[in-house]
């Protein structure tokens, strides 16, 4: 699984970062991007899905391998 942030949609709510800090990086302005290449280890897949389901901007998606 990979987590993907649409940076055009992200408005910096930081819901994803607060749920899955292992998977998300936040810049100095509070905008999010995927950490590394976005790969989600199996034990964090549920967190990744929650990051998707809590983003008010629908900016977070996951891509299943």
């Amino acid at each position, binding site marked *: 699984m990979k987590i993907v942030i649409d940076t055009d949609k992200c*408005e*910096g*709510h*930081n*819901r994803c*970062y*607060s749920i899955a800090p292992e998977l998300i990086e*936040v*810049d*100095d*302005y*509070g905008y999010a991007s995927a950490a590394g290449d976005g790969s989600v280890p199996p034990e964090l897949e549920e967190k990744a899905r*929650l990051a998707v*389901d*809590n*983003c*008010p*901007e629908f900016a977070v998606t996951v891509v299943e391998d």
Partner: protein
Amino acid sequence: MADVSDKMDASPPATDPVTDWATDYDIFDADYVANPFDVWDDLRDECPIAKTDRWGGSWMPTTYEDVVEMARMVPVLSSRDPIVVRPPDDGPSDHGDAPDASAYTTVNAPPISSDPPVHTWSRRLILPYFSPKATALHEPFTRQLCHDLIDAHIESGQIDGAADYAQQIPPRVIAHLLGVDPGKAGEFTEWVQGVLEVGLSNPAVRTKYRMKIREFFMAEIADRKKNPGDDLISDLLKAEVDGEPVSDLHVAGTCNLLLVAGIDTTWSSIGAALWHLAAHPDDTRQLVEDPSMLPNANEEFLRAYAPVTMARVVDEDAEIQGCPMSAGDKVLMNFPAANRDPAAFEDADKVIIDRQRNRHVAFGVGIHRCAGSNLARMEMEVALGVFLERIPEFSLADPGAVTWAGGQVRGPRHLPIRF
């Protein structure tokens, strides 16, 4: 500190009773302020975008879909005047003609009172002070402050969760952040209530307190120019946009925003969460036993008791979501009602502290997402965490004595708690 309630009657002005909420709603109606939820449920079923001629007239969407879509209609729905009740015709203008509102207007509060392009750069100026990392720096101060407030009441077995606790926290955190005299916190409270509570329906009072705030910050700005420090105001004065320094009035306007938007809103959220916990001992017990649940519970409190409704202005005549809106009409971004829409949330009317899927819009959505949301979350989590740690069992001393303020910022103002 000054007891503002002695100076100002924060209860909404008496108006004719409402008989038809779809065509004649009143956001200052006392029963609505205390319990708006049933009205929103009825409106969603019968007339999801309500209209009123009261208070200068406005439209009010109540579904998640409409509120979210309309919040993204920039600049068709402009943010140049985010307060619903207009000032009297003979009073100072409440919205500048210039997008920067650089004249001596009274709602100069960029970026909240602006549209792009001014919104874009003025928001970028302040965002670094409100990132998760930046706001975490204020956590130790906030935690100590909360303990000090509890210390003052722990022996008595009673505390007003709103006046003695929630209301005391954000003014001091904002003073800390702005680098101004913490002894000003009591005055900040009075000014903000003057603008956002009494002043919301009384533009003359609002103007008076806006002037006080501007005078205060213009004096602070003059001081920082002579004695620059390591603080937000000094940094804003050093900032450049396209090679030009930012005007003093812009800096004063942004400080005004941080003060007005960062205080009343956050104490309303803390107070509403305490009100819920005081009446729901099972939820309190779960959070005391497992404090790691608090961040998630906090999001649910934000969803269920979202305090803030911002206004937009229709830029030109247009049919919006099927409604014939005219240039100059106000539209209430009813984020609290959107958060209670059963089409968007399972069991929307229930407070479920371990709710997992919660795309709430308490902080708005789109380009005007609350710039201070990370600070507000930190304050809420610390305030609730310290309260539960120090006072693990508590209840409402007198449910009938609880009072609410409302209009565009809803939260409890008297919340007698016993423990």
